């Protein structure tokens, strides 16, 4: 009797299970062969991990990338004497440092380096520090490289922090305490939203046709910014560098920058350059220095020169410049032009040891401004001393 009851209970359970199964949907398998629904590791992470299996190094590299593709770090990489961290000998390679660090050691070479002929390399998101050579050396001789570096910190490397060849972009990066420059860009590159400080060389040094914007360069061993021909430098700050704040070769455009408390000049540009809407203050030498055929417009040059007489708020050392609309105060010389042939208009100087020092045969009218009486209302004032709209004034 008891056994019958148990059997009945079991059958009832089976019936209940059957009902539950019915509620759970049909159990008829779908047509066709059984196929797996899981994803393989390579489907979840299709990129290639940098390790001794996938990217074995050789006599001079810890890892070596020989095929195009997308690579990523799976941990910190420690350098070895006589070796690079990662050597790239293939074109079209992306390396995601994945937040990890490439950490050099005594006698190591570059953190990441490319071989000659390599193009289109991207490095992003990590730190490269303590290498015996460059942090990143993505400059392959004279070949076209087109590198892009994003979100990388380069620190305490034996050469420059980040060195890039032609057509490169560096964005959102920092470089500190590298033996040479913080950043190097060869040609046609872009550097933006970066910080470069306390490097042994320049904050950034570039070849021709490089654009530098929205970046800060502080306490570097030579210049804050040093560029080749036809470079664009906008929205930057150069502060307390041992050399000059900004040094640009000819055909440069320097706009909306501050260059303050540097040991040399505030801003020095080569021929046919433009310096506009900048502040140059408290620099050890002159505020703005220009070669021939330059436009020096709307700048504010204050307290440069360390009190030494040859230095000036604005120093023009070659002919055919336009010096217009600038404000020069409290320098040894306000505006100094040492050669003939420039057009100097609508500038004002005040409080300099010598406000104007301009050799003959420049187009320049300087008027000692006439003080007005007190004004309270809708009218007043007097002519500053000239009806010439191009007059310069001392005030």
């Amino acid at each position, binding site marked *: 009797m008891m056994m019958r009851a148990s059997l009945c209970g079991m059958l009832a359970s089976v019936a209940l299970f059957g009902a539950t199964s019915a509620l759970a949907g049909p159990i008829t398998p779908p047509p066709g062969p059984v196929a797996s629904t899981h994803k393989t590791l390579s489907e979840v992470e299709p990129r290639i991990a940098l390790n001794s299996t996938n990217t074995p190094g050789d006599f001079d590299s810890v890892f070596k990338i020989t095929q195009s593709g997308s690579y990523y770090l799976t941990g910190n990489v420690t350098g070895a004497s006589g070796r690079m961290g990662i050597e790239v000998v293939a074109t079209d390679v992306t390396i995601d440092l994945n937040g990890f660090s490439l950490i050099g050691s005594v006698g190591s070479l570059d953190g990441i380096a490319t071989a000659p002929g390599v193009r289109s390399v991207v490095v992003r998101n990590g730190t490269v*520090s303590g290498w015996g050579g460059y942090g990143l050396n993505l400059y392959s001789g004279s070949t076209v490289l087109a590198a892009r570096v994003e979100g990388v910190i380069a620190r305490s490397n034996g050469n420059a922090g980040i060195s890039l060849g032609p057509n490169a972009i560096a964005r959102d990066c920092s470089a500190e305490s590298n033996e040479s420059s913080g950043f190097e860009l060869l040609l046609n590159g872009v550097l933006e939203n970066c910080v470069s400080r306390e490097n042994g060389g320049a904050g950034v040094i570039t070849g021709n046709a490089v654009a530098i914007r929205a970046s800060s360069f502080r306490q570097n061993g030579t210049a804050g910014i040093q560029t080749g021909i036809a470079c664009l430098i906008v929205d930057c700050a150069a502060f307390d560098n041992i050399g000059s704040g900004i040094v640009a070769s000819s055909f440069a455009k320097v706009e909306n920058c501050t260059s303050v408390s540097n040991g040399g000049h505030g801003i020095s540009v080569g021929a046919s350059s433009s310096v506009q*809407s900048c502040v140059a203050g408290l620099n050890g030498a002159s505020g703005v220095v220009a070669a021939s055929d330059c436009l020096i417009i709307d700048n*504010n040059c204050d307290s440069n020169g360390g009190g030494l007489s040859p230095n000036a708020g604005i120093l023009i050392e070659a002919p055919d410049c336009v010096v217009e609309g600038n404000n020069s105060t409290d320098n040894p010389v306000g505006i100094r032009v040492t050669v003939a042939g420039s057009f100097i208009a609508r500038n004002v100087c005040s409080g300099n040891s010598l406000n104007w020092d301009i050799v003959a045969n420049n187009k320049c009218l300087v008027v000692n401004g006439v003080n007005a009486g007190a004004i309270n209302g809708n009218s007043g004032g007097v002519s500053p001393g000239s009806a010439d709209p191009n007059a310069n004034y001392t005030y």
Partner: protein
Amino acid sequence: MNRTIGSMLASVVWMGVVCAGPITPPPGPVVGTPGPEPRIAINAANTPGDANSIFRITQPGSYYLTGNVTGEAAKNGIEIGASGVTLDLNGFDVVGVTGSLDGISATASLRNVTVRNGSVRNWGEDGVDLSTSLSRMARVEAVHTSGNAVDGIRAGDGGLVVNCHASYNGEDGVSSALTVTGSVARNNGRFGFSINVGGVIVDSAAFDNTDYGIYASNGCTIMRCSSRSNGDGIIAFGDSLIKECTVTLNTGDGINGQQGTTIIDCIASDNGADGIIVLSRSLVRGNTCHGNASDGIFVSSSGANRIEGNHMSGNGRGLHVIGPGNVIMKNTASGNTTVNWSIVANNIVAPIIDRTAVVSAAISGNSASSSLGTSDETANFTY
């Protein structure tokens, strides 16, 4: 009947054996299945905390969150104790509680620390504090900080802040950064942003902060920023550049430029005190100052400022100069309620031409007579 039941049970046992596969373990030691995530997860096993931290990072490397972090009293959320650390918040939320310390903090003398991609809120001290003495070269990217008792983000000397948001923090939104770009600071208890000497802030907005929207030290570049409804809009110390910024509806002053500062092409409107203030040796050009309760532009007593080409309308006073030794030309003033021009003696002031009563006839065609009243190109105008 008994045979039927026995067959059924046998079938169940057989199916279980076949479906479950072999139960004999493979030979050799047990090893984990390799996964696609090589970074180090923040958890009690990998990054155990200590007396004052829930999690503590002690080795260089790349770390990530696998879930939200909830704070505890008297503890930091994640303490970074090694240089060369990247912490990816992975989109998660690091939430403090009453009496907690920093959400994310760094110990002294660290270098090369990056924090990115997540939210840090409601901590008892700072949200992200990477500025401990001698720490530097921090990067903070795409982090939202809010409701922290002190600062939202303390980036430290050399800090780079990109695309961040800081709101409702007790003191500064972003403090002590060197370069800030594409960020927002709102409703913080003191400054929206404070920028170190030689710093840069571009393309950013500060609003509804209790004190200054942007507080910049010497030699800073401030470009294309907006500062609205703060205690004061922007203050910049010596030899800084402020260009193409808007400062509106601040309770106090719009822009306060100390000595040697250049302020160009800005709009300062509807502020509770002055639109623009400068001390000495500054260049103020091409700005529009409208509807400020006190002065459109106020020039203090120190002198050697160049005030040129600005427009001042609807303020208490248009241009107010209380010291000698400045040069003032090509400005325009209109409809300022107390007075359009208030300038003490011994400044170089180009003629101020009163054209308030002069109107031109309608013009339709190719020419018209001048109604400027002067041919002096340096003249200032009232209209």
